[in-house]
């Protein structure tokens, strides 16, 4: 796609050179893309591009994601894990987008996209070992819960600092282009993250370099206590794409089919050399920010109510039922199966030794530990041998 430039840009000498900010304009320019309505019916004129088998598989993934999030929050409340952050209500944004990619496409997650890792093969047991931070964790309990890594599925390591993954995804896309690979990375981030410099830098770099990358903004309405309306005065996130010179699309993030279809289109365009896309996936954070947060302090319960009717899982359930692909018994069986799967994984994950050996602390700081790491490991081991309290977390609490 060539960017057409007028040979003689218009010049004028009057006040009409200024552009006014006009509220509402961009809402009209970026209508919400939706395929399936809240009752699970196809919108008039819409076509179901996704296959029925895939739809059913994605429904199962969403049910799993929801059940897992609920179970893990309970686990945290019971004190068995220290922290949890999930995607309750936002399932369609994660599963729909990842299903529309190719297996070789890298995923640059924020911290709610655990489902993306599962779709790429991360075993539930391994994920839960990260929650326990025990010896079964791939990174041996180095990171907080919900900061998993899964390189076999091209799922990049999660970090907490906001939006850093956005520019990194651009770099990966660039690298793939240089090497002639058919690889379109996706960066997930939230609405709050659009205020961070990495968002702006990432979009600018991507458009300037015209790299194949997908920016998936999960606009869930909140950044901890800050509503998205205080995060930006833009009425949509999608319109921000225009300023950087790329395509933007506002998508019903609670419509699995819309997310899937929009992401697939974005991938096709990227792979065809047509550059990056910003997808604004409009959804809602149904719960607190994380288990550390109590939203009652800043968000009246009523504001969540209307979103309950828009539940992304129910919508697919209705669609599947209407098409004869799911009945009550089948749904119940599927849910039982998912519950059992979680239960089994939990049992396996909890069975690992609670701590990786202390060596793990000093490994992977560098490719080879330096003398400081070697000496300090020896020092720590000697200290632990001399006094068992050194390794006893109970003594941490005053």
């Amino acid at each position: 796609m060539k960017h057409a430039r007028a040979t003689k840009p218009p010049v004028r000498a009057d006040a009409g050179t200024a552009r006014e900010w006009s509220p509402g304009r961009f809402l009209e320019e970026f209508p919400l893309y939706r395929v399936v309505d809240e009752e699970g019916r196809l919108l008039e004129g819409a076509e179901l591009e996704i296959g029925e088998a895939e739809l059913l598989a994605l429904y199962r993934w969403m049910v799993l994601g929801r059940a897992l999030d609920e179970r893990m929050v309970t686990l945290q409340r019971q004190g068995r894990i220290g922290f949890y952050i999930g995607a309750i209500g936002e399932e369609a944004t994660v599963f729909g987008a990842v299903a529309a990619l190719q297996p070789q496409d890298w995923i640059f997650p924020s911290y709610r996209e655990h489902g993306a890792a599962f779709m790429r093969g991360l075993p539930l047991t391994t994920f839960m070992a990260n929650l326990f931070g025990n010896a079964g964790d791939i990174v041996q309990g180095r990171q907080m819960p919900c900061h998993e890594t899964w390189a076999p599925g091209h799922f990049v390591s999660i970090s907490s600092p906001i939006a850093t993954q956005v520019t990194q995804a651009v770099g990966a896309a660039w690298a793939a282009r240089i090497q002639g690979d058919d690889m379109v990375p996706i960066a997930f981030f939230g609405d709050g993250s659009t205020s961070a410099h990495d968002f702006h830098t990432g979009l600018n770099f991507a458009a300037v370099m015209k790299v194949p990358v997908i920016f998936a903004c999960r606009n869930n309405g909140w950044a901890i206590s800050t509503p998205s309306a205080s995060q930006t005065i833009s009425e949509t996130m999608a319109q921000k794409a225009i300023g950087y010179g790329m395509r933007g699309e506002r998508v019903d993030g609670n419509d699995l089919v819309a997310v899937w279809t929009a992401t697939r289109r974005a991938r096709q365009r990227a792979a065809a050399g047509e550059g990056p896309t910003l997808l604004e996936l409009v959804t809602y954070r149904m719960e607190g920010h994380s288990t550390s947060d109590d939203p009652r302090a800043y968000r009246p319960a009523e504001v969540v109510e209307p979103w309950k009717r828009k539940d992304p899982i129910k919508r697919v359930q209705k669609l599947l039922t209407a098409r004869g692909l799911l009945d009550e018994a089948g749904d119940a069986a599927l849910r039982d199966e998912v519950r059992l799967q979680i239960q089994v994984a939990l049992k396996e994950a909890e069975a690992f030794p609670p701590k990786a050996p202390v060596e793990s602390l000093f490994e992977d700081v560098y490719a080879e530990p330096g003398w400081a790491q070697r000496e300090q490991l020896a020092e720590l081991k000697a200290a632990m041998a001399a006094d068992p309290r050194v390794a006893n977390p109970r003594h941490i609490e005053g």
Partner: protein
Amino acid sequence: MPVMNVIQAVNDALRVEMRRDPKVVVLGEDVGAFGGVFRATAGLQQEFGAMRVVDTPLAEGGIIGTAAGMALYGLRPVAEIQFADFIYPAFDQIVNEVAKFRHRSGGQYPCPITIRTPYGGGIKGGHYHSQSPEALFLHTPGLKVVVPSGPYDAKGLLLSAIRDPDPVIFFEPKRVYRAARGEVPEGEYLVPLGKAAVTRAGTQLTLIAWGAMWHEAEQAAKEAEAEGIDVEVLDLRSLQPLDIDAITASVKKTGRAVVVHEAPRTCGFGAELSALIQERCFLSLEAPVARVTGFDTPFPYTLEAEYLPRAPRILQAIRATLSY
């Protein structure tokens, strides 16, 4: 006198100063309507309004850059960075701008902002909710760095920091945010920047700490006492300006020093303290200055008990330094 924890003391200091000085404004992520993720700014927006207690977009560089502009124009902004681990997007503004404004403008544009930020481990926060980055800022001339250990100092030091003519980074010990409680006078009082507190007098060894680790140092000193070792404990309170006189006076008296900090050892502030002590107290020293610190690794999640330089490791260093 009311008893407060550290969060309440910080909150009280902000309220006292905002009532006294209309030029004081508070800004940061989630600080306004919600009152901060740790509740340190709770109730301030209700009392002082949204113009003075500002919920900012999510961008630390934006928070500090705009705070700098406010300060240049004459206000006294108090910016909150939600966790010290997230201060790095603002590093350029802090190090290249805020720290250097006074010097590079020949004193015409001082930039007296206060940056409050919870720091440190022991709360199961892993790599990104546990860091102690004080040394990065101590390596930047032009910045003051203050770290209270408890509520009384938190309030008195924060009031001094806000009124100080220079930019101050105010690291709050989040591990003891609620656990450290004590009497806090109502209204205003100032704890001066640059004055260490001798919290325990002793003759055989000087134990130097600040912030959350001061509590571990006190515990270690108590255990040492039970073993018949007489330890003097210094709570530095402010790292820049540094109370060099208190340090040299103590070490010249005891002849031994152990420094404790959570941050990794290499280039931690303990390195500077150790150098200062050997430069100034060389002839009094009976043993090398020991450092009990975090290790040269990222801050861990599961192994945080092992990582933190808590009382048991400090006690071992005290014994080793005594029997050197």
